């Protein structure tokens, strides 16, 4: 890798846009009476659910993503709790994407609430005489005009994706910041290691073990030390470049796994009831797989369980199977997953099922069981067609009927494949 020692002093041309507390803000936009109120959005109203997003009013009371509702309510009296409404968030996501696409052909969405515009690919006339800060203010104004006045976003501008995201996080909510070669050191001076995107506890420990205690020291560490002593891999080189504003994160990611996870809606249910939920998840995974035009060869099932001692320490269990031939039907996925699941431990808390070793859906090498394959493909195609025309789960396995109201499609984090 060709490493550059200098800080990138080019004109910042990468803009990171991040919707503030996305789901909560969208709910406050839609439901006027929720504006100005501490609000927590959860995936399921039943039980002691986990906070998916908290509004800024709730955050000021210490409510955070990942917190249990019971804990959040102790911190914030009058906390309003509402369930996620994915079609709303998808709509706002697409509005934001439309706005971003109007500026450049190079737009990538990192998740449902954040994306990057690379203005190096933008037509010259779009910027004629304007700075990127002015464009950033225009994006904010358009979001309010085209979605609603309560919508806010953070905008960060820099020479690479990492610094643009860092800039977008400097002043929340509704901030707009630019990081350049001139203010880079000043920005790092005000941050902790874990404030850097990609540096969580394990990486912090790695850095601190060689005496790197803050982002400025991280910046000043030679690439060789990062490569050989801290990250023990090319990641050290990537961090060396990333911190200096050189682009190393402009990479396309490929889908390697397609899956679903579900926290059980009760912890005393029978094994048959758990299998119903597993079957529902397998159907959902199958639909996603085929919607991507893919087949898979691997199935993975995993669970978190409460320990046998009942001390609530979480245990993990998983099993996987690789087939010789690709598969795509709900029935096959469930048959394989169920076979694996039969050896799962008791006290199951959640179910995780996904398929992997993905390939193009067209199987050019038909096996000896080609007739069976063609028949399965025709039936699955017909069912998909009906579900597409009349709505998802119009046709589904009979034993999943009781789960229809329990397992709903939720917003996938960290991926925009299904939006």
């Amino acid at each position: 890798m060709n490493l550059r020692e200098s800080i990138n002093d080019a004109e910042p041309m990468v803009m990171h846009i991040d919707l503030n507390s996305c789901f909560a803000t969208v709910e406050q936009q839609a439901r006027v009476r929720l504006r100005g109120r501490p609000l927590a959005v959860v995936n399921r109203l039943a039980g002691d659910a986990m906070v998916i997003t908290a509004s800024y009013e709730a955050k000021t009371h210490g409510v955070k993503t990942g917190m249990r509702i019971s804990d959040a309510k102790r911190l914030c009296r009058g906390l309003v709790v509402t369930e996620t409404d994915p079609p709303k968030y998808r709509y706002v996501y697409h509005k934001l994407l439309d706005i971003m696409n109007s500026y450049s052909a190079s737009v990538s969405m990192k998740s449902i609430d954040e994306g990057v515009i690379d203005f190096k690919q933008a037509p010259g006339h779009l910027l004629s005489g304007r700075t990127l800060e002015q464009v950033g203010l225009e994006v904010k104004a358009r979001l309010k005009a085209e979605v609603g006045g309560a919508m806010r976003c953070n905008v960060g501008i820099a020479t690479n994706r990492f610094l643009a995201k860092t800039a977008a996080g400097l002043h929340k909510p509704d901030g707009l910041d630019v990081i350049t070669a001139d203010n880079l050191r000043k920005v790092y001076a005000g941050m902790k290691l874990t404030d850097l995107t990609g540096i969580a506890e394990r990486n912090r420990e790695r850095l601190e073990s060689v005496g790197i205690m803050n982002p400025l020291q991280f910046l000043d560490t030679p690439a060789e030390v990062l490569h050989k002593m801290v990250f023990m891999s090319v990641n050290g080189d990537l961090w060396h470049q990333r911190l200096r504003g050189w682009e190393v994160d402009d990479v396309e990611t490929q889908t390697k796994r397609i899956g679903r996870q579900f926290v059980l809606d009760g912890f005393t249910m029978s094994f048959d009831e758990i299998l119903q939920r597993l079957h529902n998840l397998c159907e959902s995974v199958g639909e996603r797989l085929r919607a991507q035009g893919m087949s898979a060869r691997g199935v993975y099932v995993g669970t978190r369980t409460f320990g046998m001692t009942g001390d609530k320490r979480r245990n993990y269990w998983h099993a996987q199977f690789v087939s010789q031939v690709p598969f795509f039907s709900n029935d096959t996925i469930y048959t394989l997953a169920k076979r694996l699941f039969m050896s799962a431990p008791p006290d199951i808390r959640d179910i995780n099922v996904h398929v992997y070793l993905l390939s193009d859906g067209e199987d050019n090498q038909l096996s000896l069981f080609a007739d069976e394959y063609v028949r399965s493909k025709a039936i699955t195609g017909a069912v998909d067609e009906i579900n597409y025309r009349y709505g998802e789960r119009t046709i589904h396995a009979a034993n999943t009927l009781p789960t229809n109201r329990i397992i709903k499609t939720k917003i996938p984090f960290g991926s925009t494949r299904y939006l």
Partner: protein
Amino acid sequence: MFDETTLNERIDVIARFGVGLNPCEPVKFRRPNGREVVVSEIGLRHPTVQGKRTIHVFDVTDGAADYRIEFDSEHLTWQLTRMGDRL
């Protein structure tokens, strides 16, 4: 949790269709019990799909309560599906 009622009421609606970013804006609606609600603000309009049918969902308020009304673009019908009083 907060107080919200799920409803399934067919409603009469007066809506304004025009040009611009919001080409369809419900102005007021009448519930089966005869009560009229004048829309003072549209919080958000978003589409949902049920198979190939598109339902346009409007989250609106009359200043005293919030309502969710839905326009079925295939059957050209309006439903009041949710209502929540001001907190």
